[in-house]
Protein backbone atom coordinates (compact mmCIF):
# COMPACT_ATOMS: atom_id res chain seq x y z
CA UNK A 1 0.00 0.00 0.00
CA UNK A 2 1.46 3.38 -0.98
CA UNK A 3 1.64 6.24 1.44
CA UNK A 4 -0.79 8.52 -0.40
CA UNK A 5 -3.28 5.69 -0.79
CA UNK A 6 -3.30 5.19 2.96
CA UNK A 7 -3.70 8.89 3.57
CA UNK A 8 -6.74 9.07 1.27
CA UNK A 9 -8.26 6.08 3.00
CA UNK A 10 -7.71 7.67 6.41
CA UNK A 11 -9.35 10.95 5.31
CA UNK A 12 -12.37 9.08 3.95
CA UNK A 13 -12.89 7.11 7.12
CA UNK A 14 -12.40 10.25 9.20
CA UNK A 15 -15.00 12.11 7.15
CA UNK A 16 -17.33 9.17 7.54
CA UNK A 17 -16.88 9.14 11.32
CA UNK A 18 -17.56 12.87 11.55
CA UNK A 19 -20.63 12.59 9.33
CA UNK A 20 -21.98 9.73 11.42
CA UNK A 21 -21.48 11.59 14.70
CA UNK A 22 -22.91 14.80 13.28
CA UNK A 23 -26.07 13.01 12.13
CA UNK A 24 -26.42 11.27 15.50
CA UNK A 25 -25.99 14.54 17.39
CA UNK A 26 -28.49 16.27 15.12
CA UNK A 27 -31.09 13.55 15.66
CA UNK A 28 -30.49 13.66 19.41
CA UNK A 29 -30.81 17.44 19.67
CA UNK A 30 -33.47 18.11 17.04
CA UNK A 31 -36.52 17.12 19.16
CA UNK A 32 -35.48 19.71 21.78
CA UNK A 33 -35.29 22.39 19.11
CA UNK A 34 -38.56 21.25 17.57
CA UNK A 35 -40.24 21.32 21.00
CA UNK A 36 -39.14 24.94 21.34
CA UNK A 37 -40.42 25.76 17.82
CA UNK A 38 -43.82 24.27 18.61
CA UNK A 39 -43.88 25.98 22.00
CA UNK A 40 -43.58 29.34 20.26
CA UNK A 41 -46.08 28.80 17.45
CA UNK A 42 -49.87 28.80 17.35
CA UNK A 43 -51.94 25.86 16.21
CA UNK A 44 -52.52 27.14 12.69
CA UNK A 45 -48.76 27.38 12.07
CA UNK A 46 -48.29 23.91 13.55
CA UNK A 47 -51.18 22.26 11.71
CA UNK A 48 -50.29 23.32 8.20
CA UNK A 49 -48.29 21.62 5.47
CA UNK A 50 -45.35 21.96 5.67
CA UNK A 51 -45.36 22.52 9.47
CA UNK A 52 -43.44 25.39 11.06
CA UNK A 53 -39.74 24.75 11.63
CA UNK A 54 -38.64 28.14 12.93
CA UNK A 55 -39.62 29.72 16.27
CA UNK A 56 -42.74 31.88 16.29
CA UNK A 57 -44.03 34.63 18.58
CA UNK A 58 -46.44 32.71 20.82
CA UNK A 59 -44.03 31.83 23.62
CA UNK A 60 -45.97 33.76 26.29
CA UNK A 61 -49.46 32.86 25.02
CA UNK A 62 -48.71 29.16 24.93
CA UNK A 63 -47.21 29.14 28.38
CA UNK A 64 -50.08 31.09 29.91
CA UNK A 65 -52.40 28.49 28.35
CA UNK A 66 -50.34 25.83 30.13
CA UNK A 67 -50.77 27.63 33.45
CA UNK A 68 -54.51 27.89 32.85
CA UNK A 69 -54.78 24.16 32.14
CA UNK A 70 -52.57 22.62 34.83
CA UNK A 71 -50.94 23.81 38.03
CA UNK A 72 -47.51 23.88 36.38
CA UNK A 73 -45.48 25.53 39.15
CA UNK A 74 -47.29 23.59 41.86
CA UNK A 75 -46.42 20.34 40.10
CA UNK A 76 -42.77 21.38 39.63
CA UNK A 77 -42.63 22.26 43.32
CA UNK A 78 -44.11 18.85 44.26
CA UNK A 79 -41.50 17.14 42.10
CA UNK A 80 -38.71 19.16 43.72
CA UNK A 81 -39.95 18.29 47.22
CA UNK A 82 -40.42 14.60 46.47
CA UNK A 83 -37.13 14.13 44.63
CA UNK A 84 -35.09 16.17 47.12
CA UNK A 85 -36.44 14.50 50.27
CA UNK A 86 -36.24 10.98 48.82
CA UNK A 87 -32.69 11.65 47.65
CA UNK A 88 -31.51 13.06 51.01
CA UNK A 89 -33.14 10.17 52.82
CA UNK A 90 -31.55 7.62 50.53
CA UNK A 91 -28.11 9.22 50.87
CA UNK A 92 -28.31 8.97 54.66
CA UNK A 93 -29.88 5.51 54.96
CA UNK A 94 -27.82 3.88 52.22
CA UNK A 95 -24.50 5.26 53.41
CA UNK A 96 -25.32 4.20 56.96
CA UNK A 97 -26.23 0.68 55.84
CA UNK A 98 -23.28 0.55 53.45
CA UNK A 99 -21.00 1.59 56.32
CA UNK A 100 -22.42 -1.19 58.50
CA UNK A 101 -21.85 -3.79 55.77
CA UNK A 102 -18.34 -2.53 55.02
CA UNK A 103 -16.92 -1.79 58.47
CA UNK A 104 -18.96 -3.50 61.20
CA UNK A 105 -19.07 -7.19 62.08
CA UNK A 106 -22.34 -8.86 62.89
CA UNK A 107 -23.89 -12.28 62.49
CA UNK A 108 -25.58 -13.02 59.18
CA UNK A 109 -23.99 -9.98 57.53
CA UNK A 110 -23.26 -11.71 54.23
CA UNK A 111 -26.65 -13.36 53.93
CA UNK A 112 -28.42 -10.07 54.67
CA UNK A 113 -26.32 -8.31 52.03
CA UNK A 114 -27.14 -10.97 49.44
CA UNK A 115 -30.82 -10.64 50.40
CA UNK A 116 -30.63 -6.94 49.59
CA UNK A 117 -29.06 -7.68 46.21
CA UNK A 118 -31.80 -10.23 45.44
CA UNK A 119 -34.50 -7.59 45.97
CA UNK A 120 -33.01 -5.70 43.01
CA UNK A 121 -34.07 -8.50 40.66
CA UNK A 122 -37.79 -8.21 41.47
CA UNK A 123 -39.80 -6.25 38.87
CA UNK A 124 -41.52 -3.30 40.58
CA UNK A 125 -44.92 -4.13 39.03
CA UNK A 126 -45.19 -7.38 40.98
CA UNK A 127 -46.28 -5.65 44.19
CA UNK A 128 -48.00 -2.67 42.56
CA UNK A 129 -51.60 -3.42 43.50
CA UNK A 130 -51.02 -4.31 47.19
CA UNK A 131 -48.71 -1.28 47.44
CA UNK A 132 -51.58 0.85 46.23
CA UNK A 133 -53.88 -0.79 48.81
CA UNK A 134 -51.37 -0.14 51.62
CA UNK A 135 -51.08 3.51 50.63
CA UNK A 136 -54.89 3.76 50.66
CA UNK A 137 -55.10 2.12 54.10
CA UNK A 138 -52.45 4.49 55.46
CA UNK A 139 -54.49 7.40 54.13
CA UNK A 140 -51.56 8.52 51.98
CA UNK A 141 -53.44 8.72 48.69
CA UNK A 142 -52.79 12.18 47.19
CA UNK A 143 -50.04 12.66 49.75
CA UNK A 144 -46.41 13.16 48.70
CA UNK A 145 -45.40 10.74 51.48
CA UNK A 146 -46.70 7.98 49.20
CA UNK A 147 -43.77 8.69 46.87
CA UNK A 148 -41.12 9.69 49.39
CA UNK A 149 -41.37 6.87 51.95
CA UNK A 150 -41.33 3.87 49.55
CA UNK A 151 -38.68 5.82 47.62
CA UNK A 152 -36.33 5.42 50.60
CA UNK A 153 -35.92 1.73 49.73
CA UNK A 154 -32.85 1.60 47.54
CA UNK A 155 -30.98 -1.69 47.31
CA UNK A 156 -28.63 -0.37 44.64
CA UNK A 157 -27.72 2.57 46.89
CA UNK A 158 -26.68 0.25 49.73
CA UNK A 159 -24.66 -1.89 47.31
CA UNK A 160 -22.99 1.19 45.83
CA UNK A 161 -22.12 2.68 49.23
CA UNK A 162 -20.76 -0.59 50.58
CA UNK A 163 -18.45 -1.00 47.59
CA UNK A 164 -17.26 2.59 47.82
CA UNK A 165 -16.69 2.53 51.59
CA UNK A 166 -14.89 -0.85 51.43
CA UNK A 167 -12.38 0.41 48.91
CA UNK A 168 -11.97 4.03 50.03
CA UNK A 169 -12.18 4.10 53.82
CA UNK A 170 -9.09 2.33 55.27
CA UNK A 171 -9.64 0.02 58.26
CA UNK A 172 -6.63 1.64 59.98
CA UNK A 173 -8.44 4.97 60.00
CA UNK A 174 -11.51 3.39 61.58
CA UNK A 175 -9.37 1.64 64.20
CA UNK A 176 -7.43 4.82 64.98
CA UNK A 177 -10.65 6.74 65.49
CA UNK A 178 -11.89 3.98 67.75
CA UNK A 179 -8.75 4.16 69.90
CA UNK A 180 -9.30 7.91 70.19
CA UNK A 181 -12.67 7.06 71.69
CA UNK A 182 -14.99 7.71 68.74
CA UNK A 183 -18.39 6.07 69.00
CA UNK A 184 -19.49 3.95 66.05
CA UNK A 185 -21.83 6.67 64.83
CA UNK A 186 -19.06 9.24 65.01
CA UNK A 187 -16.80 6.96 63.00
CA UNK A 188 -19.56 7.01 60.37
CA UNK A 189 -20.38 10.69 60.62
CA UNK A 190 -16.98 12.34 61.20
CA UNK A 191 -14.63 9.90 59.45
CA UNK A 192 -16.56 8.07 56.74
CA UNK A 193 -18.97 10.71 55.43
CA UNK A 194 -16.28 13.27 54.44
CA UNK A 195 -14.40 10.57 52.47
CA UNK A 196 -17.40 9.33 50.49
CA UNK A 197 -18.65 12.65 49.08
CA UNK A 198 -18.06 11.47 45.45
CA UNK A 199 -20.23 8.40 46.09
CA UNK A 200 -22.94 10.72 47.46
CA UNK A 201 -22.83 12.80 44.28
CA UNK A 202 -23.26 9.74 42.06
CA UNK A 203 -26.08 8.26 44.07
CA UNK A 204 -27.81 11.63 44.38
CA UNK A 205 -27.89 12.11 40.61
CA UNK A 206 -29.20 8.59 39.96
CA UNK A 207 -31.88 8.84 42.64
CA UNK A 208 -33.00 12.37 41.92
CA UNK A 209 -33.40 11.65 38.22
CA UNK A 210 -35.23 8.43 38.90
CA UNK A 211 -37.79 10.05 41.22
CA UNK A 212 -38.12 13.17 39.05
CA UNK A 213 -38.89 11.11 35.93
CA UNK A 214 -40.95 8.33 37.53
CA UNK A 215 -44.47 8.05 36.17
CA UNK A 216 -46.32 4.78 36.89
CA UNK A 217 -46.22 4.93 40.70
CA UNK A 218 -47.14 8.65 41.01
CA UNK A 219 -49.92 8.07 38.47
CA UNK A 220 -51.36 5.34 40.68
CA UNK A 221 -51.22 7.10 44.07
CA UNK A 222 -51.61 10.78 43.15
CA UNK A 223 -55.15 11.36 41.91
CA UNK A 224 -55.70 14.94 42.98
CA UNK A 225 -54.38 17.91 40.92
CA UNK A 226 -52.83 19.53 43.98
CA UNK A 227 -50.60 16.51 44.62
CA UNK A 228 -49.44 15.91 41.02
CA UNK A 229 -45.76 15.68 40.25
CA UNK A 230 -44.73 17.32 36.99
CA UNK A 231 -44.79 14.05 35.01
CA UNK A 232 -48.37 13.29 36.04
CA UNK A 233 -49.38 16.92 35.46
CA UNK A 234 -47.94 16.84 31.92
CA UNK A 235 -50.28 14.00 31.11
CA UNK A 236 -53.16 16.35 31.99
CA UNK A 237 -52.11 18.51 29.02
CA UNK A 238 -52.82 15.81 26.45
CA UNK A 239 -56.00 14.56 28.10
CA UNK A 240 -58.13 17.41 26.71
CA UNK A 241 -60.56 16.93 23.86
CA UNK A 242 -59.23 19.94 22.01
CA UNK A 243 -55.55 19.30 21.44
CA UNK A 244 -53.55 22.49 21.43
CA UNK A 245 -50.12 21.20 20.41
CA UNK A 246 -48.40 24.54 20.96
CA UNK A 247 -49.64 24.57 24.55
CA UNK A 248 -48.83 20.87 25.12
CA UNK A 249 -45.25 21.23 23.91
CA UNK A 250 -44.79 24.50 25.77
CA UNK A 251 -45.54 22.69 29.03
CA UNK A 252 -43.34 19.77 28.05
CA UNK A 253 -40.49 22.05 27.00
CA UNK A 254 -40.44 24.11 30.20
CA UNK A 255 -40.73 20.96 32.31
CA UNK A 256 -37.71 19.49 30.52
CA UNK A 257 -35.46 22.57 30.56
CA UNK A 258 -34.47 22.61 34.28
CA UNK A 259 -32.99 19.12 34.29
CA UNK A 260 -31.27 19.69 30.92
CA UNK A 261 -29.59 22.85 32.26
CA UNK A 262 -28.33 21.02 35.33
CA UNK A 263 -27.14 18.23 33.05
CA UNK A 264 -25.26 20.62 30.76
CA UNK A 265 -23.58 22.30 33.75
CA UNK A 266 -22.54 19.02 35.35
CA UNK A 267 -22.36 16.87 32.22
CA UNK A 268 -19.23 14.92 33.15
CA UNK A 269 -20.56 14.03 36.58
CA UNK A 270 -23.99 13.11 35.16
CA UNK A 271 -22.67 10.88 32.41
CA UNK A 272 -20.19 9.05 34.62
CA UNK A 273 -22.72 8.66 37.46
CA UNK A 274 -25.53 7.33 35.33
CA UNK A 275 -23.40 4.89 33.34
CA UNK A 276 -20.65 3.75 35.73
CA UNK A 277 -23.18 3.17 38.47
CA UNK A 278 -25.14 0.95 36.12
CA UNK A 279 -22.20 -1.03 34.81
CA UNK A 280 -20.69 -1.70 38.21
CA UNK A 281 -23.91 -3.20 39.52
Amino acid at each position, binding site marked *: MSKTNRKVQLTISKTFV*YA*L*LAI*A*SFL*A*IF*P*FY*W*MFVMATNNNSA*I*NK*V*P*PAIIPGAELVTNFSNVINTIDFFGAIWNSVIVATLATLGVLF*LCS*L*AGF*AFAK*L*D*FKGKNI*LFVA*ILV*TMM*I*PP*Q*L*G*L*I*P*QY*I*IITKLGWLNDLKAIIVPGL*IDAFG*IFWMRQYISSNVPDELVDAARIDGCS*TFRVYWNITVPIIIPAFATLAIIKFMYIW*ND*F*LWPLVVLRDQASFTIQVAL*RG*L*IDNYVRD*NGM*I*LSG*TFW*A*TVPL*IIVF*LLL*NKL*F*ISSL*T*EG*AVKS
Partner: protein
Amino acid sequence: MAQIQVEKQLPPRKSSLSQKTKNAINGYLYISPFFLLFAVFGLFPILFSFYLGFQKWNGLGEMEYVGFQNFKLILEDPLFWKALGNTMIMWVLGTLPQLLIGIILAYALNSALIKLKSFFRISVFMPYVTSTVAVAIVFGIMFNSQEFGLFNAILGNFGIDPVSWSTSEWGVKMAISTMVFWRWVGYNTIIYLAGLQAIPNELYEAAVIDGATTRQKIQYITIPMLRPIIIFTVFTSTIGALQLFTEPLIFIGRTYRQEGITVVLYLYREAFANQAFGPASATAIILFLIIIVISSINVLVANRIAR
Protein backbone atom coordinates in the same frame (compact mmCIF):
# COMPACT_ATOMS: atom_id res chain seq x y z
CA MET B 1 -29.71 -7.64 79.12
CA ALA B 2 -28.26 -10.78 80.68
CA GLN B 3 -25.19 -10.39 78.56
CA ILE B 4 -24.55 -6.86 79.73
CA GLN B 5 -24.77 -7.99 83.36
CA VAL B 6 -22.24 -10.74 82.72
CA GLU B 7 -19.89 -8.21 81.19
CA LYS B 8 -20.15 -6.06 84.29
CA GLN B 9 -19.03 -8.97 86.45
CA LEU B 10 -15.89 -9.47 84.34
CA PRO B 11 -14.21 -6.05 84.29
CA PRO B 12 -10.98 -7.07 82.48
CA ARG B 13 -12.74 -8.34 79.38
CA LYS B 14 -15.40 -5.68 79.42
CA SER B 15 -14.10 -3.25 76.82
CA SER B 16 -13.29 -5.70 74.02
CA LEU B 17 -16.44 -7.74 74.45
CA SER B 18 -18.73 -4.76 74.70
CA GLN B 19 -17.13 -3.12 71.70
CA LYS B 20 -17.87 -6.22 69.66
CA THR B 21 -21.44 -6.39 70.90
CA LYS B 22 -21.87 -2.68 70.33
CA ASN B 23 -20.64 -3.08 66.76
CA ALA B 24 -23.15 -5.82 66.15
CA ILE B 25 -26.01 -3.82 67.68
CA ASN B 26 -25.06 -0.76 65.64
CA GLY B 27 -24.73 -2.90 62.52
CA TYR B 28 -28.25 -4.25 62.86
CA LEU B 29 -29.53 -0.80 63.75
CA TYR B 30 -27.95 0.82 60.67
CA ILE B 31 -29.32 -1.71 58.21
CA SER B 32 -32.74 -2.01 59.85
CA PRO B 33 -34.45 0.92 58.04
CA PHE B 34 -34.06 -0.90 54.71
CA PHE B 35 -35.50 -4.14 56.03
CA LEU B 36 -38.38 -2.45 57.86
CA LEU B 37 -39.37 -0.35 54.85
CA PHE B 38 -38.90 -3.27 52.49
CA ALA B 39 -41.07 -5.50 54.67
CA VAL B 40 -43.93 -3.02 54.48
CA PHE B 41 -43.64 -1.65 50.93
CA GLY B 42 -41.80 -4.51 49.19
CA LEU B 43 -42.06 -7.99 50.64
CA PHE B 44 -45.61 -7.84 51.97
CA PRO B 45 -47.04 -6.45 48.69
CA ILE B 46 -45.26 -9.18 46.72
CA LEU B 47 -46.63 -11.97 48.92
CA PHE B 48 -50.03 -10.33 48.89
CA SER B 49 -49.94 -10.22 45.08
CA PHE B 50 -49.57 -14.00 45.03
CA TYR B 51 -52.55 -14.23 47.40
CA LEU B 52 -54.67 -11.76 45.41
CA GLY B 53 -54.00 -13.67 42.21
CA PHE B 54 -56.33 -16.38 43.52
CA GLN B 55 -59.07 -14.07 44.78
CA LYS B 56 -61.97 -12.23 43.24
CA TRP B 57 -61.95 -8.68 44.56
CA ASN B 58 -62.90 -5.20 43.36
CA GLY B 59 -60.90 -3.43 46.07
CA LEU B 60 -63.89 -2.68 48.31
CA GLY B 61 -66.13 -5.68 49.12
CA GLU B 62 -65.30 -9.14 50.40
CA MET B 63 -62.61 -11.27 48.79
CA GLU B 64 -63.64 -14.57 47.34
CA TYR B 65 -61.28 -17.47 46.67
CA VAL B 66 -61.56 -18.53 43.03
CA GLY B 67 -58.59 -20.85 42.55
CA PHE B 68 -56.93 -20.55 39.16
CA GLN B 69 -59.95 -18.74 37.68
CA ASN B 70 -58.07 -15.43 37.29
CA PHE B 71 -55.19 -17.09 35.45
CA LYS B 72 -57.66 -18.88 33.20
CA LEU B 73 -59.44 -15.61 32.55
CA ILE B 74 -56.21 -13.87 31.56
CA LEU B 75 -54.80 -16.71 29.49
CA GLU B 76 -58.09 -17.04 27.58
CA ASP B 77 -58.27 -13.30 26.90
CA PRO B 78 -57.10 -12.58 23.32
CA LEU B 79 -56.19 -9.05 24.42
CA PHE B 80 -53.61 -10.43 26.89
CA TRP B 81 -51.93 -12.41 24.11
CA LYS B 82 -52.09 -9.35 21.90
CA ALA B 83 -50.42 -7.33 24.68
CA LEU B 84 -47.74 -9.98 25.11
CA GLY B 85 -47.13 -10.12 21.35
CA ASN B 86 -46.93 -6.32 21.12
CA THR B 87 -44.47 -6.23 24.01
CA MET B 88 -42.24 -8.80 22.32
CA ILE B 89 -42.35 -7.04 18.94
CA MET B 90 -41.53 -3.66 20.50
CA TRP B 91 -38.77 -5.30 22.54
CA VAL B 92 -37.08 -6.38 19.31
CA LEU B 93 -37.87 -3.19 17.37
CA GLY B 94 -36.71 -0.89 20.16
CA THR B 95 -33.80 -2.83 21.56
CA LEU B 96 -31.94 -4.40 18.65
CA PRO B 97 -31.32 -1.22 16.61
CA GLN B 98 -30.52 0.62 19.83
CA LEU B 99 -27.70 -1.77 20.74
CA LEU B 100 -26.31 -2.09 17.20
CA ILE B 101 -26.24 1.66 16.58
CA GLY B 102 -24.95 2.20 20.12
CA ILE B 103 -21.91 0.05 19.32
CA ILE B 104 -21.29 1.80 16.00
CA LEU B 105 -21.53 5.27 17.59
CA ALA B 106 -19.28 4.24 20.46
CA TYR B 107 -16.73 2.94 17.96
CA ALA B 108 -16.86 6.24 16.07
CA LEU B 109 -16.52 8.25 19.29
CA ASN B 110 -13.58 6.14 20.37
CA SER B 111 -11.58 6.56 17.17
CA ALA B 112 -8.49 8.66 17.61
CA LEU B 113 -8.14 12.28 16.50
CA ILE B 114 -11.81 13.09 16.85
CA LYS B 115 -12.34 16.71 17.81
CA LEU B 116 -15.50 17.90 19.55
CA LYS B 117 -15.58 14.58 21.35
CA SER B 118 -17.22 15.98 24.46
CA PHE B 119 -19.82 17.84 22.37
CA PHE B 120 -20.83 14.59 20.66
CA ARG B 121 -20.85 12.74 23.97
CA ILE B 122 -23.08 15.32 25.66
CA SER B 123 -25.51 15.60 22.77
CA VAL B 124 -26.09 11.87 22.30
CA PHE B 125 -26.59 11.49 26.05
CA MET B 126 -29.08 14.36 26.39
CA PRO B 127 -32.19 12.33 25.46
CA TYR B 128 -31.58 10.08 28.45
CA VAL B 129 -31.96 13.02 30.84
CA THR B 130 -35.40 13.76 29.36
CA SER B 131 -38.33 12.12 31.13
CA THR B 132 -40.13 9.26 29.41
CA VAL B 133 -43.38 11.23 29.62
CA ALA B 134 -41.84 14.20 27.80
CA VAL B 135 -40.32 11.93 25.14
CA ALA B 136 -43.67 10.22 24.58
CA ILE B 137 -45.53 13.53 24.30
CA VAL B 138 -43.03 15.05 21.85
CA PHE B 139 -42.80 11.99 19.61
CA GLY B 140 -46.54 11.43 19.93
CA ILE B 141 -47.06 14.81 18.26
CA MET B 142 -44.33 14.17 15.68
CA PHE B 143 -46.11 10.92 14.83
CA ASN B 144 -49.44 12.71 14.32
CA SER B 145 -51.48 10.77 11.78
CA GLN B 146 -52.52 13.92 9.88
CA GLU B 147 -50.48 15.06 6.90
CA PHE B 148 -49.01 17.97 8.92
CA GLY B 149 -47.47 15.58 11.46
CA LEU B 150 -43.68 15.94 11.26
CA PHE B 151 -42.96 12.39 10.13
CA ASN B 152 -45.83 12.43 7.64
CA ALA B 153 -44.66 15.80 6.31
CA ILE B 154 -41.18 14.35 5.76
CA LEU B 155 -42.64 11.27 4.06
CA GLY B 156 -44.81 13.63 1.99
CA ASN B 157 -41.64 15.21 0.58
CA PHE B 158 -40.86 11.83 -0.94
CA GLY B 159 -44.37 11.48 -2.28
CA ILE B 160 -45.43 8.96 0.35
CA ASP B 161 -49.01 9.13 1.64
CA PRO B 162 -49.59 9.99 5.31
CA VAL B 163 -49.30 6.99 7.65
CA SER B 164 -51.91 6.63 10.40
CA TRP B 165 -49.28 6.15 13.10
CA SER B 166 -51.68 6.12 16.05
CA THR B 167 -54.17 3.57 14.70
CA SER B 168 -52.37 1.15 12.38
CA GLU B 169 -50.88 -2.14 13.54
CA TRP B 170 -47.26 -1.33 12.65
CA GLY B 171 -47.52 2.45 12.85
CA VAL B 172 -48.15 2.36 16.61
CA LYS B 173 -45.30 -0.06 17.20
CA MET B 174 -42.87 1.91 15.05
CA ALA B 175 -43.76 5.12 16.85
CA ILE B 176 -43.37 3.62 20.33
CA SER B 177 -40.14 1.82 19.41
CA THR B 178 -38.75 5.09 18.06
CA MET B 179 -39.41 6.75 21.42
CA VAL B 180 -37.60 3.97 23.26
CA PHE B 181 -34.77 4.02 20.73
CA TRP B 182 -34.27 7.78 20.91
CA ARG B 183 -34.17 7.93 24.69
CA TRP B 184 -31.81 4.98 25.21
CA VAL B 185 -29.39 4.81 22.28
CA GLY B 186 -27.05 7.48 23.66
CA TYR B 187 -27.03 5.88 27.09
CA ASN B 188 -25.91 2.58 25.61
CA THR B 189 -23.39 4.39 23.40
CA ILE B 190 -21.69 5.85 26.47
CA ILE B 191 -21.67 2.48 28.21
CA TYR B 192 -20.06 0.84 25.17
CA LEU B 193 -17.62 3.74 24.92
CA ALA B 194 -16.49 3.10 28.50
CA GLY B 195 -16.01 -0.54 27.55
CA LEU B 196 -14.01 0.35 24.44
CA GLN B 197 -11.76 2.70 26.38
CA ALA B 198 -10.95 -0.12 28.78
CA ILE B 199 -9.46 -2.24 25.97
CA PRO B 200 -5.66 -1.89 26.10
CA ASN B 201 -4.19 -0.17 23.04
CA GLU B 202 -1.34 -2.71 22.85
CA LEU B 203 -3.80 -5.31 21.56
CA TYR B 204 -4.64 -3.17 18.53
CA GLU B 205 -0.99 -2.25 17.97
CA ALA B 206 0.00 -5.91 18.00
CA ALA B 207 -2.79 -6.69 15.56
CA VAL B 208 -1.64 -3.94 13.18
CA ILE B 209 1.90 -5.35 13.24
CA ASP B 210 0.41 -8.73 12.32
CA GLY B 211 -1.33 -7.04 9.39
CA ALA B 212 -4.92 -7.10 10.67
CA THR B 213 -7.58 -5.10 8.80
CA THR B 214 -10.09 -2.85 10.58
CA ARG B 215 -12.77 -5.50 10.20
CA GLN B 216 -10.54 -8.16 11.71
CA LYS B 217 -9.65 -5.84 14.58
CA ILE B 218 -13.35 -5.34 15.34
CA GLN B 219 -14.16 -9.01 14.97
CA TYR B 220 -11.29 -10.49 16.97
CA ILE B 221 -10.50 -7.80 19.54
CA THR B 222 -13.31 -5.31 20.01
CA ILE B 223 -16.36 -7.58 20.07
CA PRO B 224 -14.85 -10.27 22.34
CA MET B 225 -13.53 -7.65 24.79
CA LEU B 226 -16.89 -5.87 24.85
CA ARG B 227 -18.82 -9.08 25.43
CA PRO B 228 -19.59 -8.63 29.16
CA ILE B 229 -20.88 -5.12 28.53
CA ILE B 230 -22.97 -6.24 25.56
CA ILE B 231 -24.51 -8.94 27.73
CA PHE B 232 -25.22 -6.37 30.43
CA THR B 233 -26.98 -4.00 28.02
CA VAL B 234 -29.01 -6.79 26.42
CA PHE B 235 -30.07 -7.87 29.89
CA THR B 236 -31.13 -4.44 31.16
CA SER B 237 -32.83 -3.32 27.96
CA THR B 238 -34.75 -6.60 27.78
CA ILE B 239 -36.09 -6.19 31.30
CA GLY B 240 -36.89 -2.55 30.55
CA ALA B 241 -38.72 -3.49 27.35
CA LEU B 242 -40.85 -6.10 29.11
CA GLN B 243 -42.00 -3.36 31.50
CA LEU B 244 -42.93 -0.89 28.74
CA PHE B 245 -45.76 1.31 30.01
CA THR B 246 -45.35 5.07 29.84
CA GLU B 247 -44.82 5.43 26.08
CA PRO B 248 -47.89 3.40 25.04
CA LEU B 249 -50.09 4.99 27.74
CA ILE B 250 -49.21 8.50 26.58
CA PHE B 251 -49.33 7.63 22.87
CA ILE B 252 -52.59 5.67 22.69
CA GLY B 253 -54.21 7.20 25.76
CA ARG B 254 -57.14 5.86 27.67
CA THR B 255 -58.42 3.88 24.70
CA TYR B 256 -55.92 1.08 25.39
CA ARG B 257 -55.98 0.40 21.65
CA GLN B 258 -55.03 -3.18 20.95
CA GLU B 259 -52.36 -2.17 18.42
CA GLY B 260 -50.24 -0.68 21.18
CA ILE B 261 -51.28 -2.25 24.48
CA THR B 262 -48.40 -3.84 26.44
CA VAL B 263 -48.44 -6.32 29.33
CA VAL B 264 -47.95 -3.65 32.02
CA LEU B 265 -50.57 -1.43 30.38
CA TYR B 266 -52.93 -4.42 30.38
CA LEU B 267 -52.20 -4.91 34.09
CA TYR B 268 -52.82 -1.22 34.78
CA ARG B 269 -56.10 -1.33 32.87
CA GLU B 270 -57.34 -4.44 34.72
CA ALA B 271 -56.52 -2.88 38.11
CA PHE B 272 -57.30 0.80 37.78
CA ALA B 273 -59.85 1.00 34.95
CA ASN B 274 -61.75 -2.26 35.55
CA GLN B 275 -61.18 -2.53 39.34
CA ALA B 276 -60.40 -6.22 38.75
CA PHE B 277 -57.62 -6.66 41.30
CA GLY B 278 -57.60 -10.46 41.07
CA PRO B 279 -56.92 -10.72 37.33
CA ALA B 280 -54.52 -7.76 37.57
CA SER B 281 -52.49 -9.59 40.23
CA ALA B 282 -52.58 -12.74 38.13
CA THR B 283 -51.15 -10.66 35.25
CA ALA B 284 -48.39 -9.35 37.54
CA ILE B 285 -47.49 -12.93 38.50
CA ILE B 286 -47.45 -14.04 34.86
CA LEU B 287 -45.25 -11.07 33.94
CA PHE B 288 -42.89 -11.97 36.80
CA LEU B 289 -42.64 -15.56 35.52
CA ILE B 290 -41.99 -14.34 31.97
CA ILE B 291 -39.22 -12.06 33.23
CA ILE B 292 -37.67 -14.95 35.19
CA VAL B 293 -37.78 -17.24 32.12
CA ILE B 294 -36.32 -14.64 29.77
CA SER B 295 -33.63 -13.62 32.28
CA SER B 296 -32.64 -17.27 32.74
CA ILE B 297 -32.39 -17.72 28.97
CA ASN B 298 -30.27 -14.59 28.89
CA VAL B 299 -27.94 -15.94 31.58
CA LEU B 300 -27.71 -19.35 29.91
CA VAL B 301 -26.91 -17.86 26.51
CA ALA B 302 -24.42 -15.46 28.10
CA ASN B 303 -22.62 -18.33 29.84
CA ARG B 304 -22.55 -20.34 26.63
CA ILE B 305 -21.03 -17.43 24.70
CA ALA B 306 -18.58 -16.59 27.47
CA ARG B 307 -16.83 -19.92 27.06
